[in-house]
């Protein structure tokens, strides 16, 4: 007893000591950063890019082109350091003060947290900041603002569509060129046909795991399609506890309960292995599967079917970090890399869609030569991203946990999932 008391006393003393150390912070909360003269300063800068081969090739090309013209403002590019996700590596770098000037792989969900950390430069404060972003991306880019300002340049999107294996479809007796799976009922019928025919062990295999971003590749594209682009949270409140949200939830719950979508994570690439016939994917998948799967694409289904549906943008954007000492160079380089010429190069190298108002007409030659990408170019006119809100990651984690429980594992009803998630998320966004 004496030992227990002594141990608890030590723990308590440490706690009280630490609590007593509280200074409460000096509270200016400016969220800014970087040196006073950093905004206009020029000189060498570092950038981080994602690690996929095609994007690295693009980055190398644009950096070489810039460096050839700017001997005093050399740019050094490297892949984002390894981590469980890019967001975690970037968060750690912000805290440590080792973030580069620019990162070309920013997910909208993480931005509000980084703004709160004081890690991002407000691009709207550059003289031509807001106008450049809006001229390039159009009115829709306003949804990428945080606290009314641009802390990211909306760069490229990967509109999510249903990608399918034409060979498997043919084996299942479905028309590979026109599968006719635009409605939930048609999609379910087609899925049953795929599995019952033995053409594939599963119809579609979204990852059933618990990471916060997984809803972006199962529930959310269908929800955006069903609602005509209503985001998960709008005007400070969740939007999904509605008939539309219920319809999407019930659709996926049926897919899982009938075994058309597996509850286990795939141990390999199910699409390449032929253990599934479909997946939700962006245009990046065309090049990735070119050698292994004969792929076709169709819009995500809705309850009633529609010719032109919304979907998830899955955009990746560019942010400037407050640790950057030469923000003048960084801003000019950012504009250089998002010029029409370099956007075209990005499209050619990666198949990902630059977020531009005039995408289809500006690169009409490319789309004429690559018709499979044309559907994605058209889809970019009807996309929505994740909402830019406080506690964004926590909101999506709550949503995922409730969704998994009801839809994937059937431990609660879809109605309970919608109600519970709504209550929790409204509490988080209402803070």
């Amino acid at each position, binding site marked *: 007893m004496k030992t227990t008391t002594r*141990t608890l006393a030590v723990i308590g003393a440490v706690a009280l000591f630490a*609590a007593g150390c509280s200074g409460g912070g000096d509270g200016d909360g400016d969220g800014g950063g970087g040196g006073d003269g950093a905004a206009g300063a020029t000189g060498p800068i570092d950038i981080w890019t994602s690690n996929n081969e095609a994007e690295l090739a693009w980055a190398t090309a644009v950096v070489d082109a810039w460096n050839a013209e700017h001997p005093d403002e050399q740019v050094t590019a490297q892949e984002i350091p390894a981590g469980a996700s890019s967001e975690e590596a970037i968060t750690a770098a912000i805290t440590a003060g080792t973030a580069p000037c620019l990162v070309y792989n920013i997910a909208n969900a993480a931005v509000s947290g980084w703004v709160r950390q004081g890690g991002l430069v407000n691009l709207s404060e550059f003289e031509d900041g807001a106008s450049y972003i809006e001229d390039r991306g159009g009115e829709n880019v306003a949804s990428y603002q945080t606290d009314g300002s641009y802390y990211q340049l909306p760069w490229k999107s990967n509109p999510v569509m249903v990608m399918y294996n034409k060979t498997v479809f043919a084996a299942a007796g479905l028309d590979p060129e026109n599968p006719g799976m635009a409605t939930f009922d048609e999609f379910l019928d087609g899925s049953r046909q795929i599995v019952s025919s033995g053409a594939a062990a599963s119809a579609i295999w979204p990852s059933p795991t618990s990471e916060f971003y997984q809803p972006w590749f199962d529930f959310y594209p269908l929800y955006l399609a069903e609602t005509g682009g209503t985001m998960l949270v709008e005007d400070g409140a969740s939007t999904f506890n509605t008939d539309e949200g219920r319809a999407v939830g019930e659709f996926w719950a049926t897919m899982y309960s009938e075994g058309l979508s597996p509850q286990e994570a795939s141990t390999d690439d199910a699409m390449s292995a032929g253990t599934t016939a479909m997946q939700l994917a962006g245009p990046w998948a065309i090049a990735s599967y070119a050698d292994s799967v004969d792929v076709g694409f169709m819009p995500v289904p809705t309850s009633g079917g529609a010719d032109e549906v919304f979907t998830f943008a899955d955009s990746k954007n560019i942010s400037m970090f407050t640790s950057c000492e030469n923000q003048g160079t960084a801003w000019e380089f950012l504009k250089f890399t998002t010029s029409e010429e370099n956007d075209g190069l990005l499209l050619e190298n990666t198949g990902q869609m630059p977020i531009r108002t005039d995408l289809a007409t500006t690169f009409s030659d490319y789309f004429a030569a690559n018709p499979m990408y044309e559907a994605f170019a058209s889809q970019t006119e009807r996309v929505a991203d994740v909402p830019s809100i406080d506690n964004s990651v926590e909101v999506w984690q709550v949503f995922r946990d409730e969704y998994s429980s009801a839809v994937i*594992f059937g431990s609660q009803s879809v109605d309970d999932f919608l109600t519970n998630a709504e209550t929790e998320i409204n509490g988080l966004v209402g803070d």
Partner: protein
Amino acid sequence: MTTTQLRTPRRPWWGVQPIGTVFALPYLVFVAVVFVYPLCFAVYIAFHDYIFTAPGVSVPTPFVGFDNFADVLTDPKVLQSFRNTGVFLVIFVPLTVVLSLILATALNAGIRFVSAFRVAFYVPYLTASVSLVGVWMLLFAQNGLINTILGPLAPSPSWLINSGLAMPTIALYVTWKQLGFYILLYLAALQNIPKELYESAATDGANLRQRFLNVTVPGVRATTTLVLILAIILGANLFTEPYLLTNGGGPDGASATPVLLIYQKGIQQQNPDTASAIGMLLVIVVGLLSMAASRLNREK
């Protein structure tokens, strides 16, 4: 005859051998920087509304008393994670102690191919969990080898997606993986039991089971305490296995652990204050469990 009571000279704070203290200083500094400071800082964070910021950026971090702890203790997911850890410990700790002691005793008895057996038990411990997890995922998958062998007796839903079986399966995996280390501890302890004790017991007519219970078990009591405490600490820090085997929390959060939530809240969601509060609770729970285990074993 009078007795003179000699006063023991008071030991100076720098110890009997000052030069020894000097040699120990680098380690003391290391402990202070790597353990003491982070611990104190974590306690500080747990009592404040705190976020990590970029260098030079100042945001308010007001003292919030026990608010973070209240948030944590009323969060069903946190409570579930502690319950999940309890399930894990209830399976893992007794299984580890019993199996490692029995196997160490067998390996110490001079059976044939003893070196091969020792290596066999130790290899999983040395191998990275990430690679072994892949094998277990294949074994315990819906269409895996285990279910194929079990046939109609296979559970539905399958092992790792079954909310009742996910944590026990993880406990079995961790027991199997860690067993080699605990066997090694027991093997060392068994070397220290005098052979004469076994000979005396045998002379007195004690059979194998009686010798095990009356000589071996008391002889390795100190090691059993160590194994219990280490097993509890390992169980409480569980992260990699449930994260990889059941994909970040498992079916319906059935394999979520406090450390997984610390990772989610502290790193992914940028709420280090609530993450620290969970960490503090975990330290207290582990401390109490370890003390209880130590006392229980001593009183036996």
